[in-house]
């Protein structure tokens, strides 16, 4: 089976486990075990080749664009890790079946565990760095899920978030590093990268890459100063802790260091950063572990410490140090996993993990106690156990360290000190829990754990002992291939033996044990001393930091996006002002080459009136009624300007739109306050004045620059083709209904939607209806002035005739559907004013929604008709017919299109008015009482 099956099988297993809710616990566990066992079999199947020094590959070409491929490899290092991941994984699965109480969901835990296992397997087997990162992030996610397994506990949620944040940050750094690395080498394939160590180290990006990748590794493997997430991850169920913190999650960081060792290691900076970080972590972890009263806390810091130890080893500039590191990876995994499991049993059976309560457990659970003591001894580095072997190798290698120059002697000293503390906390683990008097207030009556719950521990302890006694037999070969994978082929000569004779490392071991015993015996004083130190907890820093960041963000956002429309508008306008204004200064001359028209009286008066109207609108803007009158002047003058500059169609349109707009504004004014209070400070007014003046100057200048220069435009085409191609002499109208009919279709759609939207806005709206005007006058009694009512009836047919006139001539002379529609609408508005909406609604029995839809539909069908002739949408058609008596008559599809425009305009305007009319007509009583909108 190909390598990619390994993660695939565990993924499938994860899915299967998640659906196993109906199975019994034993069945669930059994089903779950299938996937890792198969995966293990696959790995073992390839193991002989690996032991022969080969690397097994499996490559699927995938994203060439990104250089991401599905690429797996199995070399010594990978094999070692897969065995650890799968082996300890199986034990944890087995153990969890007994650990988890009935009310917790076993399938959920198993699904997450297998997902996590997949991620880990993916990391260690990746041959593509991006793929590696993929699985790396997957471990972050799945560990988040595992840590927050008991999600109703605040501790679990916080711990999970912290773990995810820290490892996520590292993951992003790692990604950056890997991308740069890939760019240096030109490939994301690991074998290429690993073979290009020299090229990488000579690259100018080497330092940056290294730091980024190390950030990834250090955060994951909880190196100082990123170590603080790990103790809080202990909120997870203990099997999870056992898995994550012995063999997997934290080891991923170590794996990364080992994996990239050939590519990145061997430089001063590598040794300096890695070894110093490892050393610091080693010391801090060992020291703090002693003071943790929580068993899992102790183990957590011990884990940190041991990870520091491995890191330090990888940072020491000798090949044997690397071998020692790998050896310790194995050893740590075994004894730490068993210790966690033992802790789980203690927790499970007593209900607490507090060492101040736990005493004398030996009496209650001798088997567990024995197992735990063996493991703890291994952790302390007691001879005949595997921990001793690797620790002694470690001591030996510290003696060769050169990296601190003349101060290099510090390293073995500090290492011994750390060893002493590790002995001390191991001693505490043994003595404080299993001996040391009687238990205090235990929640449960303790007793020995179920038989099978101890099995995984027994297996692990057996390994500890076997490795400790017969190292060559058991680990030599795997250690050999793993080391050669890290050191790229150069297999160092190493010899693991229990006895090397009396030498310095042995002395260091002895010192450590002695020191440890001394420290432990002085623990009372140490605890007191520790209590006087300020508690510097990474967790609080993280949480407070997060709080500070969050509240800072909230403050900034509420300052920035403060809900003030004025601010948003002013930002927009200022942006415009800047970017439209700046290029004006680049121009040499604003005025272009065209001969300007002379100013005549006509223009002067028109300009005067327009400016007066505009300025008056601004001056009176707080007296809204007057402002409305003033803006009417502007509208009128704009249409006069259109008339003046040869745009009769525009003038007509502007006029009709103007009136309908004013009517709408007045309707609005009725429901709005009549006057605007003075609100803006004078500074603000000044600011607004400056900005608006600026806008005026800029736009005016652009306008002036444009109108004074010659234009080479496409418009001649329209003039030439209007009659021959569009069948009309009014070029503007032909553009509207033919050349650019698509715009017009969109435009009437807009109008229709606006009407629908307005209906929507006003539907069932409770409104405030003033019973007096702004000066407190009651409204006049006469609703429908007599003379007006009479005349408006007379005017209606007249207005309709005029709109028919304007409609029909539109194609050839100024006019058209839109203007005609607005004229009709205005005529009906007059009826509304004169007779009121009830009167109209009794007589005008149309459904405006349908009218609007039909109008647009007419235009649409007119355009779609050309499909019948396999012509593009809106292809126009016209022809001249000789009708008897009438003479030569033109029929054009554009007329139908224009009819659609007409119908839509009438429908939309009427719908708006009818919606507004409905507000007040339905319920006259409302106008008497002031009902401010309250739903």
């Amino acid at each position: 089976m190909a390598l990619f099956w390994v993660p695939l099988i565990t993924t499938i297993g994860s899915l299967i486990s998640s659906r196993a809710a109906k199975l019994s616990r034993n069945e669930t566990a059994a089903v779950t075990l299938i996937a890792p066992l198969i995966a293990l079999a696959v790995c073992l199947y390839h193991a002989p080749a690996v032991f022969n020094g080969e690397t097994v590959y499996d490559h699927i070409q995938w994203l060439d664009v990104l250089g991401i491929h599905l690429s797996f490899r199995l070399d010594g290092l990978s094999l070692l890790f897969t065995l650890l991941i799968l082996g300890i994984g199986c034990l944890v699965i087995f153990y969890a079946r007994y650990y988890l109480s009935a009310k917790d969901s076993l399938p959920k835990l198993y699904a997450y565990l297998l997902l996590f296992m997949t991620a880990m397997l993916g990391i260690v087997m990746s041959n593509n760095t991006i793929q590696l990162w993929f699985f790396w992030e997957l471990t972050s996610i799945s560990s988040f899920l595992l840590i927050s397994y008991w999600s109703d506990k605040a501790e679990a949620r916080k711990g999970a978030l912290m773990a995810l944040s820290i490892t996520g940050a590292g993951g992003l750094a790692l990604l950056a590093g890997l991308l740069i690395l890939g760019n240096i080498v030109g490939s994301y394939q690991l074998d290429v990268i690993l073979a290009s160590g020299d090229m990488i180290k000579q690259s100018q990006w080497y330092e940056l890459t290294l730091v980024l990748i190390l950030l990834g590794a250090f955060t994951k493997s909880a190196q100082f100063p990123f170590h603080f997430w790990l103790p809080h991850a202990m909120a997870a169920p203990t099997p999870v802790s056992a898995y994550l913190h012995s063999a997997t999650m934290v080891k991923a960081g170590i794996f990364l260091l080992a994996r990239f060792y050939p590519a990145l290691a061997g430089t001063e900076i590598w040794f300096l950063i890695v070894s110093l970080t490892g050393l610091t972590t080693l010391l801090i972890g060992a020291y703090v572990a002693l003071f943790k009263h929580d068993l899992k806390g102790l183990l957590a810091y011990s884990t940190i410490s041991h990870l520091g130890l491995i890191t330090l080893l990888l940072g020491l500039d000798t090949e044997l140090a690397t071998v020692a590191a790998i050896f310790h990876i194995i050893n740590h995994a075994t004894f730490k996993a068993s210790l966690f499991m033992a802790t789980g049993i203690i927790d499970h059976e007593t209900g607490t993990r507090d060492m101040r309560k736990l005493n004398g457990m030996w009496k209650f659970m001798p088997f567990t106690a024995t197992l735990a003591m063996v493991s703890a001894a291994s952790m302390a580095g007691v001879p005949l156990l595997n921990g001793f072997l690797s620790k002694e190798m470690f001591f030996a290698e510290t003696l060769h360290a050169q990296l601190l120059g003349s101060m290099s002697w510090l390293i073995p000293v500090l290492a011994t000190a750390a060893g002493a503390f590790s002995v001390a906390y191991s001693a505490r683990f043994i003595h404080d829990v299993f001996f040391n008097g009687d238990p205090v207030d235990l929640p449960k009556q303790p007793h020995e754990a179920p038989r099978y719950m101890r099995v995984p521990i027994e297996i692990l302890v057996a390994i500890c002992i076997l490795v400790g006694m017969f190292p060559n037999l058991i680990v030599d070969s795997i250690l050999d291939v793993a080391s050669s994978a890290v050191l790229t082929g150069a297999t160092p000569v190493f010899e693991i033996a229990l006895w090397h004779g009396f030498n310095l490392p042995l002395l260091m071991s002895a010192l450590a044990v002695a020191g440890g015993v001394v420290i432990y015996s002085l623990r009372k004083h140490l605890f007191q001393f520790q209590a006087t130190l300020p508690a510097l907890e990474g967790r609080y820093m993280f949480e407070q930091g997060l709080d500070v960041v969050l509240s800072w963000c909230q403050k900034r956002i509420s300052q920035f996006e403060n809900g003030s429309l004025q601010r948003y508008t002013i930002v927009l306008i200022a942006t415009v002002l800047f970017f439209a204004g700046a290029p004006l200064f680049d121009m040499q001359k604003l005025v272009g080459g065209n001969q300007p028209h002379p100013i005549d009286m006509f223009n002067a008066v028109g300009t005067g009136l327009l400016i007066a109207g505009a300025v008056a609108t601004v001056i009176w803007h707080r007296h809204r009624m007057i402002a409305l009158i003033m803006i009417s002047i502007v509208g009128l003058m704009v249409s006069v300007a259109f008339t003046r500059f040869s745009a009769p169609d525009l003038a007509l349109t502007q006029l009709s739109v103007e009136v309908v707009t004013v009517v709408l504004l007045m309707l609005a004014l009725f429901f709005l306050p009549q006057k605007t209070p003075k609100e803006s400070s004078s500074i603000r007014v000044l600011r607004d004045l400056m900005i608006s003046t600026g806008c005026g100057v800029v736009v005016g200048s652009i306008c002036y620059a444009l109108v004074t220069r010659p234009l080479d435009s496409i418009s001649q085409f329209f003039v030439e083709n209007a009659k021959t191609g569009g069948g009309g002499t009014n070029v503007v109208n032909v553009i509207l209904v033919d050349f650019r009919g698509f715009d017009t279709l969109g435009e009437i759609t807009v109008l229709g939607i606006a009407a629908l939207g307005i209906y929507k806005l006003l539907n069932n709206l409770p409104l405030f209806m003033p019973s007096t005007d702004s000066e407190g006058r009651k409204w006049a009694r006469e609703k429908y002035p007599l003379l007006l009512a009479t005349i408006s009836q007379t005017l209606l047919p007249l207005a309709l005739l005029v709109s028919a006139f304007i409609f029909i001539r539109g194609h050839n002379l100024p006019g058209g559907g839109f203007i005609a529609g607005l004229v009709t609408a205005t005529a009906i508005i007059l009826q509304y004013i004169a007779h009121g909406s009830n009167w109209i609604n009794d007589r005008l029995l149309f459904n405006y929604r349908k009218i609007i839809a039909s109008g647009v539909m007419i235009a649409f069908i007119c355009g779609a008709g050309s499909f019948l002739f396999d012509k593009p949408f809106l292809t126009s058609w016209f022809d001249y017919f000789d009708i008897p008596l009438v003479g030569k008559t033109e029929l054009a599809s554009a007329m139908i299109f224009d009819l659609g425009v007409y119908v839509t305009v009438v429908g939309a305007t009427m719908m708006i008015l009818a919606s507004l009319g409905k507000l007040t007509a339905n319920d006259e009583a409302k106008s008497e009482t002031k009902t401010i909108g309250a739903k």
Partner: protein
Amino acid sequence: MNRYFPAPSTSILLLVIWLLLNNSLSFGQVLLGTILAISIPIFTRPFTEQNPSVKRPALAIKQLLVVLLDIITANIQVAILIVGPNKRLRPAFVKVPLDMTDALPITLLASTVSLTPGTVSAEVYPISEEHHTSDNKTPRYLLIHVLDLQDEAKLIEQIKTRYEAPIKEIFGC
């Protein structure tokens, strides 16, 4: 006068206006005008309340000419009043009792008054709050504003004889 041809006078008027608008007497325009002249009143019929119809068209045309003439003189009079010194003007509100109650004749009278010498119709009393109904037979008054009132009684008399009486006669009410 039926459903399909509700207002012949309106139709004729519309046709004339149509031809005026198009400046054309071609058959096509007449045809189109006729179609419109017939179809528009059908559409607007619901919006037209029942008004008394013109009983004496000839008199109506004569009255129209009278009013046009009066408009010209009125305007010249008013122009002189405007240009002349304001201080000598004697503005006044005058209430003219009406013999008519229907909306259309009153409207016509009020319009005539507004267009003719120095007077502007201001209000029709009594004010009705809702829609005007023709079966309401309460006596009505026309309030007018006079720019320069010489003799109130004479003015009322003049309005009643010169304008109101012919309108009453035209509509036969």
